[in-house]
């Protein structure tokens, strides 16, 4: 049995809001593949961008609290975070706690004050939803369980910038065959190819979408997203597959804004990779939350449903 067969699940704030469909599709796909999720009890925000910008050590503490609950209260050895921001912050906290005495001191002090066990680096493995399915099930088993091939669907896989950066917080990546690459990530490509999709060459797969500018400089964000959408269309994609709720919302919202503010219309659709895998596994679109997406994913799925 894979060590990823049953994992602690840290959905994070976005999956309870704008990324609700990512939450439901992740759970539905896991169930269909025989994978189990134990949601981290009483989890908190990972510290995201806001806390990190004010005090990075408090962000480290917030992420460490989630890992402490998973490791000490739930006795889990693996925690899975489907959001790039959460995944990145947990990995960053793990790195800081292993390498920075001041971070360890801060986390210990606040943990004591909060009345829970201090998280010790190395107690837990943090993975992304892509690792969970790729290493927990694998392409062969996924192929065996397919009910609807995604054949004919052209997909641009968009990983965003936080899934692989900075390299040093992802020591398990770039380890050769079978491992994920930080410069050319491919786990989502591999899974969707196994589900029958045709992945297009997409050179902006890890490019910045301007997420951090969204409020301070919306026009730059809109232009960055528009460029990503145009590149996906130029590559021949029907769909952009996403694996992060923030990237996904950014692409969808700025697609609408680009048309309204700049008069630039693009037609490529956005779907979470779990929604695409769910369709391939024969799960109904409603269970996958496809109707919750802003872009009309069903229009792109006409080819395969």
């Amino acid at each position, binding site marked *: 049995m894979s060590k990823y067969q049953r994992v602690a699940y840290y959905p994070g704030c976005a999956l309870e809001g704008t990324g609700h469909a990512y939450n439901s599709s992740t759970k539905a796909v896991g169930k269909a593949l025989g994978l189990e999720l134990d949601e981290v009890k009483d989890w908190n925000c990972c510290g995201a961008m806001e806390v990190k910008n004010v005090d990075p050590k408090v962000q480290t503490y917030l992420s460490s609290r989630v890992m402490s609950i998973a490791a000490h209260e739930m006795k889990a050895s693996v925690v899975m975070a489907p959001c790039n921001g959460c995944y990145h912050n947990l990995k960053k906290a793990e790195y800081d706690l292993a390498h920075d005495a001041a971070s360890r001191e801060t986390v210990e002090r606040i943990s004591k004050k909060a009345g829970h066990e201090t998280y010790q680096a190395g107690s837990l493995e943090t993975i992304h939803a892509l690792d969970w399915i790729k290493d927990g099930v694998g392409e062969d088993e996924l192929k065996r369980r397919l009910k609807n091939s995604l054949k004919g669907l052209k997909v641009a896989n968009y990983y965003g910038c936080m899934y692989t950066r900075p390299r040093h917080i992802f020591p398990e990546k770039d380890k050769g065959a079978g491992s994920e690459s930080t*410069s050319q990530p491919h786990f989502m490509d591999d899974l969707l190819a196994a589900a029958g999709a045709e992945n297009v060459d997409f050179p902006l797969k890890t490019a910045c979408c301007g997420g951090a500018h969204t409020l301070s400089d919306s026009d730059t964000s809109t232009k960055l997203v528009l460029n990503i959408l145009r590149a996906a269309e*130029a590559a021949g994609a029907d769909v952009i597959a996403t694996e992060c709720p923030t990237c996904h919302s950014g692409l969808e919202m700025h697609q609408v804004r680009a048309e309204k503010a700049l008069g630039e219309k693009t037609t490529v659709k956005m779907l979470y990779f779990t929604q695409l895998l769910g369709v391939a596994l024969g799960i109904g679109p409603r269970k996958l939350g496809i109707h919750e997406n802003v872009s009309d994913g069903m229009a792109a799925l006409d080819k395969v449903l």
Partner: protein
Amino acid sequence: MRAELLARAEAVLEEWVQARGEAPTREAVETFRLLALHRQGARGVPSFNACRETCREIAYHFNLLGEAHSEKTLRMMALLVQHLELFVRGKMEVEGLGEFCCASRPVRQQSAVEEKTHG
């Protein structure tokens, strides 16, 4: 056309390097000055690596176009250069507010210190 696009990309990174008070390098990495400029521009600013793959893709598309002309590849290279321009200009605008993404720097750290000192 591919040379013009590459030169445009280099000019964007030169602007970034100059804005940080340095002289843009004339050296090359893997035969591309663009990659050397990126390396120079990312020194001490880890989040600038968010455009590293974009620079590498520009170099790759430049090479592809050297092998055979393709309108699709040319269009993709133009989109890549445009992305680099947008990213770097956006980054220059927010630089005063602090780092973002993977190398976040406390935005209000200085003002917090001032508040403590004066408050």
